C-alpha cells in the first residue's frame, strides 16, 4: 500500500479528488471529435457536462487545470467558461484566474485563441477583464501585420469586440494602417508595412504572392490557377515547420521539393506522419524515419534518458486504434510515439504489441485486443516499470487484463515492485472518464506522448488513495511552475 492520506481525509475529499482527476483525464484526451466507439455529439455532451460540473463545484481546481497538460480544445473551453461566469468568483480568485488564463493563452496556437475570442463575442462576454486579456494577448503577438493577414477575421472581430487600437510594430508614428487594412483596404494606394503591401500587390502581381504566408498565398494561387508543383516549390521557404510536415506527402505526389527536417519535429506529430505513409514507403525509408523518431524521442526524454531501468510496454495496435475520421490513427500514433520515448527512457526495454508483431515502424491497426495475454508476457520478464498504452477495450477475452493485473497485485506482487501505469488516449463519453483496466492500476489520459513522464506522476493520484489535500498541493506546485515559466517567457508551446 502506498502512504495513506492523513486521517483528516474524508470521504468527500476522496470523491473531490476523484472528480478532479476524472476531469483532468477527460480534458487531456477528449477533443470533442468523433472517436472509434462514440460519435461527436456524445463526446460534446459528455465533455460539456464535465466542464459545468467541475466549474461549479471546484472552481479553483478548474482554473488550476489550465496549468496541466490538457489539450488546446479544453484549455480554450475552460478559459471561455471562466470568463463567461466571472461573477461566480471573488476578487482573489479572479486575480489568480486572470494570470492562469494569460499564461495559457500565450501557449495556445493563435488560430485557437482567435476562435476563442470570436466565441466570447458570440456569447456576448465583454467585461473589463475580458477586454484586458484580449488587449494583453494581442500586445504580446510578435507581428500584428502577419496576424492581420493570416487571421484576418479573427483579428477584426477581436479589435471590434474589445475596442482595441491597432498598431503595426514597424512604423514608429502609427497612421492607422492596420486598421485601414482590416476594415477599409481600398482606402490606401499602398501600405508601408512590407507584408501588407505584398498582399495588395499579390492581387495583380504573381511574384508578390510568394512573399505571403503559405495559407494566404494558397488562396491567391488557387485563384490564379498556378500549377501546384511550382507553387509548392516557390512558397516552401515561407512555410512553418508543421506546414512542411503536413505537406510532405502532397508535395511528393506533385514531385515538388519541400524540404523538412524530420528530426526537429515533435514526437507524436512525427509518429502520426509515419503512420500516414504506406507500408512500402516506410520500408523504403526505414533508416530515415527510425532515425527521426529516435532523435525526437531522445530530445523529449532529455535528462531522464536511460534512467527508468527495466521497462516493459504493452502497446495497443488493435483495430480500434484506427481512431475516427477526424482523429485518424491517433491512438496508434500515441502508442508508437510512447514506444520510441520509452525506448529512450529505459535502460532495457521490452515492447509488446497486442497483435504480436515486432516491427514498430510497420504498425497498423489490425485484429482484436488480447491485452491480458500480452500483459502476461510482459510480467514474465519482471520489469521495474510496466506501461500500458491502450484504449482499454480489452476483448480477447474481455476483462482478462484487469484480472491479470488484480491477481498480480494481490498474489504475486503485493509490495508493488513493479510500477504499473495505464495510459489511455481515448475518452469514453459514456463513462465520463478514460476507460480503466483495473482498480488496482492507475489510469491516466494521454494526448501527446511527450507528456508521458508528467502523466506517470499524475497517475499515482488516480489510485484512489490520495486525498484532495495532496492533489491540491501537486496542482499548486504545477501552477507555480507554470506561471513562473510564463513569467520568464518560455515561448509558445508546440
Amino acid at each position, binding site marked *: 500500500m502506498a502512504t495513506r492520506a492523513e486521517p483528516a481525509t474524508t470521504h468527500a475529499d476522496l470523491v473531490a479528488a476523484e472528480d478532479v482527476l476524472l476531469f483532468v483525464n477527460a480534458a487531456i484526451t477528449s477533443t470533442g471529435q468523433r472517436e472509434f466507439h462514440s460519435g461527436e455529439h456524445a463526446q460534446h455532451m459528455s465533455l460539456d457536462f464535465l466542464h459545468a460540473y467541475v466549474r461549479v463545484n471546484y472552481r479553483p481546481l478548474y482554473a488550476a487545470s489550465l496549468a496541466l497538460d490538457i489539450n488546446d480544445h479544453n484549455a480554450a473551453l475552460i478559459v471561455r467558461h471562466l470568463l463567461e461566469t466571472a461573477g461566480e468568483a471573488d476578487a482573489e480568485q479572479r486575480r489568480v484566474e486572470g494570470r492562469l488564463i494569460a499564461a495559457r493563452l500565450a501557449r495556445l496556437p493563435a488560430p485557437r485563441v482567435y476562435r476563442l475570442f470570436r466565441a466570447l463575442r458570440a456569447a456576448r462576454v465583454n467585461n473589463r477583464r475580458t477586454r484586458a486579456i484580449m488587449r494583453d494577448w494581442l500586445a504580446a503577438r510578435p507581428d500584428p501585420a502577419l496576424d492581420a493577414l493570416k487571421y484576418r477575421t479573427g483579428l477584426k472581430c477581436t479589435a471590434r469586440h474589445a475596442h482595441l487600437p491597432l498598431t503595426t510594430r514597424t512604423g514608429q508614428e502609427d497612421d492607422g494602417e492596420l486598421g485601414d487594412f482590416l476594415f477599409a483596404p481600398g482606402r490606401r494606394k499602398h501600405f508601408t508595412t512590407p507584408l501588407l503591401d505584398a498582399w495588395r500587390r499579390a492581387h495583380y502581381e504573381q511574384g508578390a504572392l510568394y512573399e505571403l504566408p503559405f495559407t494566404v498565398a494558397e488562396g491567391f494561387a488557387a485563384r490564379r490557377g498556378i500549377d501546384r508543383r511550382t507553387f509548392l516549390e516557390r512558397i516552401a521557404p515561407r512555410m512553418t515547420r508543421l506546414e512542411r510536415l503536413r505537406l510532405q506527402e502532397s508535395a511528393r505526389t506533385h514531385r515538388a521539393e519541400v524540404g523538412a527536417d524530420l528530426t526537429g519535429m515533435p514526437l507524436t506529430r512525427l509518429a502520426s506522419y509515419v503512420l500516414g505513409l504506406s507500408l512500402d514507403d516506410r520500408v523504403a525509408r526505414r533508416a530515415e524515419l527510425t532515425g527521426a523518431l529516435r532523435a525526437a524521442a531522445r530530445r523529449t526524454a532529455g535528462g531522464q534518458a536511460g534512467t527508468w531501468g527495466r521497462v516493459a510496454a504493452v502497446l495497443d495496435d488493435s483495430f480500434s486504434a484506427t481512431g475516427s475520421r477526424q482523429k485518424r490513427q491517433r491512438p496508434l500514433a500515441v502508442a508508437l510515439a510512447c514506444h520510441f520515448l520509452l525506448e529512450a527512457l529505459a535502460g532495457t526495454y521490452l515492447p509488446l504489441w497486442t497483435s504480436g508483431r515486432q516491427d514498430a515502424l510497420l504498425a497498423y491497426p489490425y485484429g482484436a485486443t488480447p491485452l491480458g495475454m500480452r500483459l502476461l508476457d510482459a510480467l514474465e520478464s519482471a520489469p521495474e516499470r510496466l506501461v500500458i498504452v491502450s484504449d482499454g477495450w480489452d476483448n480477447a*477475452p*474481455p*476483462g482478462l487484463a484487469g*484480472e*491479470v493485473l488484480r491477481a*498480480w497485485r*494481490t498474489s504475486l506482487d503485493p509490495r508493488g515492485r513493479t510500477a504499473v501505469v495505464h495510459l489511455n488516449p481515448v475518452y469514453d463519453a459514456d463513462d465520463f472518464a478514460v476507460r480503466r483496466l483495473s482498480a488496482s492500476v492507475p489510469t491516466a489520459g494521454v494526448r501527446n506522448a511527450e507528456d508521458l513522464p508528467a502523466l506517470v506522476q499524475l497517475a499515482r493520484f488516480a489510485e484512489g488513495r490520495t486525498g484532495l489535500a495532496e492533489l491540491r498541493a501537486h496542482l499548486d506546485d504545477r501552477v507555480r511552475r507554470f506561471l513562473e515559466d510564463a513569467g520568464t517567457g518560455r515561448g509558445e508551446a508546440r
Partner: protein
Amino acid sequence: MSRLDMEGLSTGPAQVWGAVRLVPLMRAEPLTDLRLHREIYDKGAAGGTPSTSGGATTVAAGRRTAYTSYIPHGFVANWTGEGGPAAAYGSQFGDGRAPVECAPLHLPRKLTQRMPRSGRSGDGPSGLRFLPLHLALDGYLALHFGGPPIVWEEWTRRAVRDGLSPRAETAYRGGRVRGLADALRIFEIHPAQCGVLVYVADALAAAFVVPHPDDYRALHPSLVHDLYGELIHQYGRYGPRTVPDVPVRIDPEYIASVADLRAAAVRRQREWAEQHHDLMAGELLDESYSVRQVHRMGRFRLSRFLPPFALHRAQHIGEMITDGKGRVAYLKTFRLSDKQVRRGHVLDRLAAHDWHLGATAAAMGITVPELARRIRQLGFEELVKAHI
C-alpha cells in the same frame, strides 16, 4: 435429418456492443480450395441475367410467369477440383488443381446461377453465383407450397387450385436492427476468423461462416445488408439496451506464479468456448435438420436445410456449403420467429396426414374447429372454408 458439423471451427471471445453480442468463429486451417466473394449488383452489373435494372432482376420462368427479385448483393463461390488449372477472380488457390467440368444442374428452380464464361478466367467455369439466404428462405416459403393434393371438402376452391400462393414472410435488413450496424463497425476481426454468430439480446440471430479469413474480412460488412427475422428486429428495438459482458474471473488465491496465471487465463478461455457451445449456440448446433442438396461443385455441396418445426423452440433455417466429409465450409442462417415455426409446424402436420383436417387434428390432440382456427390465425384464412 442431420446436424451441422462445425468441426475445424473454434469459438473465440465474444465482443459486446449494446444489445448485440458477436461471437467470432476461428479456423486453425482455412479452406483454400473454396473461396467466396461478394458481387454487388447495380445497374447492369448482373451480367447473364435476362433483364436487370438497378439491382432488381426479372427472370422469365415459363409462359406468363416471371420471377422478380431485388438483389442488393450476391455471393460468388469459386472452387477447384481435379483436372486442369483454375483461376478465379484473383483468389489464390493452394495447389495447381483445377475446376471440375460443368457439373450437371438439377434444380427445382434456378436459385443458383453459373457465372458467365467471360474472358476474365479463360475457359472453364468461373464460379457459382447465389444470393445469400435466398436458398434458405426459398426453402421455407416453398414448404408444401402446392397445397392439398386431395380435394377434401373443408378446403376452399382457391386452396386446391393455387395452393399456398402467394406466400409471404417479413424480414428486416440488418441496418434496421438497432445497434447491429454499430456493433459490426467496431467489431475487431480476429486474424484467423472465418465466421461469426450474431446474438441480439442474447438470442441467436444469425450464423455466418465462410471458408477463408480473407473472405470473412471482405464479407463482414455484408452482414448489415442481410435479412434478419421479425423477432430479431423486435428484440433489438424493445429488448434490453445492453447485454452483460462475460468478463473473465480469476481467483488470485491459487496463483503462485505468472505461469499459473497464464494457465488460469487459458482455462477460462476454454471454459467460455464450451459454455458458449452448450448454452448459447446449442439451439443451432444440436438441432437435426432436413438437408436438401441444391448444387454440387467439386467436392463441395451447396444445400439448404429446414428445422423439424418443433414448437416452442428457437429454430433456424439456412443454407450451407459442405465439403466431402460434411464439414461446414459456408453457412448462413435465419432465425424463425415463433409464429413462423408454428406455420411450418402446422403445414408439416397437415402434409403428413394428406391434408385431412380430421386426421391431423386427432394426431395433434385437438378438435377440428381448433385446428381450423389455428390455420386461420397463422395467416392462411383463405384456405379453409368459413363454416369449419
